[in-house]
């Protein structure tokens, strides 16, 4: 078990390193002067020293490798540098927005699991019957709907036409009730969970179908167990195992959130922060978000594998 943990951490560090080099490289080879914001016409002309000092502060001087090493050193001890656009520390801005994205993601993840597990099981149990066809059509639509378009349609329907739900943002100004927060969050959470649910249902359904064909279901039947008894006592547990890996792989979204949904619903999460960072080429912010989301995703998969090991006895000791 310990050798597995050690091997996986080494792998994760190596991937993180690759990601940092890859994104740092992309950002720094893009043309245009990052300080363009400060040289808008009609703004106070900066002297050369001021510009040098600004660059120094934002870590933009020296060759790309120096900048990378500088950035890497600072990141390792937790300082993600300062954002170019508003010169505030990147870390604070990101952590300040995490609750918004994490909240939305958690809600959509919970909704999807709560809906997907029973739907997946039923679709798997009643393979090729009407229940299965109905659920499958829903899942096909779920994975095929473009998220942003679905968002727009919902906005048209619920906020513009029926006007019962706000069309964007997280809170109406001045109102600080959770009910208001929920009202704002319903539509984005719905858009996210439709896609998540569809993916989960397909996964659980495929798994249930394979589990139902396994011989131990035949043995359970030969012991005199009833259909539902077999489903809940035997098959359910083995179908839940892959859900752990699925949730693990979606864990990264807790940080990135969905850029698209957050920009369509102008939800003040990390996704929106990322979009604005890209628009005004705020390198440290982009790097910060990329690294955090990468860490979250790798951790998610890692935890899922460990959990999978505990849940499935066959894997527990044979860790390769």
């Amino acid at each position, binding site marked *: 078990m310990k050798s597995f943990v050690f091997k996986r951490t080494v792998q994760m560090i190596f991937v993180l390193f690759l990601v940092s080099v890859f994104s740092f490289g992309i950002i720094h080879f893009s043309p245009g002067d990052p300080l363009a914001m400060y040289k808008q016409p009609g703004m106070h002309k900066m002297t050369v020293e001021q510009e040098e000092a600004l660059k120094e502060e934002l870590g933009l001087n020296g060759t790309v490798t120096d900048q990378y090493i500088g950035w890497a050193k600072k990141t390792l001890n937790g300082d993600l540098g300062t954002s170019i656009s508003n010169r505030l520390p990147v870390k604070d801005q990101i952590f300040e927005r995490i609750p918004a994205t994490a909240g939305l993601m958690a809600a959509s993840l919970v909704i999807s699991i709560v809906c997907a597990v029973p739907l997946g099981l039923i679709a798997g149990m009643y393979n090729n019957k009407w229940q299965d066809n109905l659920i499958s059509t829903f899942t096909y639509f779920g994975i095929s709907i473009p998220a942003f378009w679905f968002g727009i349609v919902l906005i048209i329907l619920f906020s513009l036409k029926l006007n019962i739900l706000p069309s964007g943002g997280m809170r109406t100004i001045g109102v600080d009730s959770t009910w208001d927060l929920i009202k704002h969050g319903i539509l984005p959470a719905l858009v996210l969970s439709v896609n998540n649910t569809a993916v989960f249902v397909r996964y659980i359904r495929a798994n249930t179908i394979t589990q139902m064909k*396994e011989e131990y279901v035949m043995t359970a039947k030969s012991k005199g167990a009833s259909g539902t008894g077999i489903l809940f006592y035997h098959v359910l547990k083995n179908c839940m195992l892959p859900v752990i890996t699925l949730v693990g792989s979606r864990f990264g979204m807790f940080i990135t959130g969905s850029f698209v949904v957050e920009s369509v619903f102008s939800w003040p999460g990390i996704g929106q922060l990322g979009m604005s960072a890209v628009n005004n080429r705020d390198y440290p912010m982009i790097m910060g978000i990329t690294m955090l989301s990468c860490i979250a995703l790798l951790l998610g998969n890692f935890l899922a594998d460990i959990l999978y090991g505990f849940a499935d006895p066959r894997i527990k000791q044979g860790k390769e």
Partner: protein
Amino acid sequence: MKKLLEVKNLRVSFHSYSGEVEAVRGVSFHVNEGESVAIVGESGCGKSVTARTVMGLTQCPPGEIKEGSEIIFDGRDITKFSEKEWQRYRGGDCAIIFQDALAALNPTLTVGHQIEEKLKLHGIKDKKEAYSETVRLLTAVGIPNPEKRYKAYPHEFSGGMRQRIMIAIAIACNPGLLIADEPTTALDVTIQADIIDLIKELVKEHNTAVIMITHDLGVVADMAERIIVMYAGKVVEEGSSEDIFYKTKHPYTRALLNSVPRLDLDEEKELEFIEGAPPDMTDPPKGCAFAGRCPYCMEICTKEEPPCYEFNEGHTAHCWKYHEYAEGLFGEVEE
């Protein structure tokens, strides 16, 4: 001897892409109480389908039990069972052992739980009593230190041990009939011998009837009082162990016996083998299914179903050879 199970004209077929596969085409046999019967035949002859239909495990959307098939267990026709009756019948009156125990046991449940599940389903509700009964069963099938192994998972046992757990589950509520569907095919010879002895012991102890499904004639000789030989979905010969081995009547049975090398004999002559291969069951041939490969084939064999002839008490064979018209055709002396 009271008849425990009687199968009359059982016909089962499966619907798949390539059309309808008639796996069982009219099988009739009976099993008395406490009697051990072997069903022998090559793969694809329908022996496993027959066994699983008797246990009610044939799933009906792809499979289909045709009209006119009757399976009477202890006086009740099980094809007319309701779901409740099926649940009491499976495990209580009739139990089954599968070939690959690793696939037949739930990998994420401990062995103790899987045995207790059956006990709970058949009336032993109290936790303590179920636990002691499970430990008794584990000792009865010869698993060392059962208290510790009670909590172990199926993959932590060797092939032979897993098969013993399958047997423990099967005999848990003293079923009247035990069906063993090729229980030892996946095991090594020495372990196979232990498992066969274990089954014989347990069966004698509880006076349980056994249907042993196998393609290994050695296992049959060791275990069965009566033998049913099946070919291409039909019973071709049926009789006591001595009748089948020493007074073989049906050409297929004789060819099968001669194509198996004997360990104790050193004859140098070539193994007698059967030409060609079993027929394709999507469109079974008219008349006798073995006609295409039979050395005594007559034109009638390819046209009409062979009738059933009885030789001595309980020994029957389906072959045109014994019809009075075919009297002088075949020279060799029938032993």
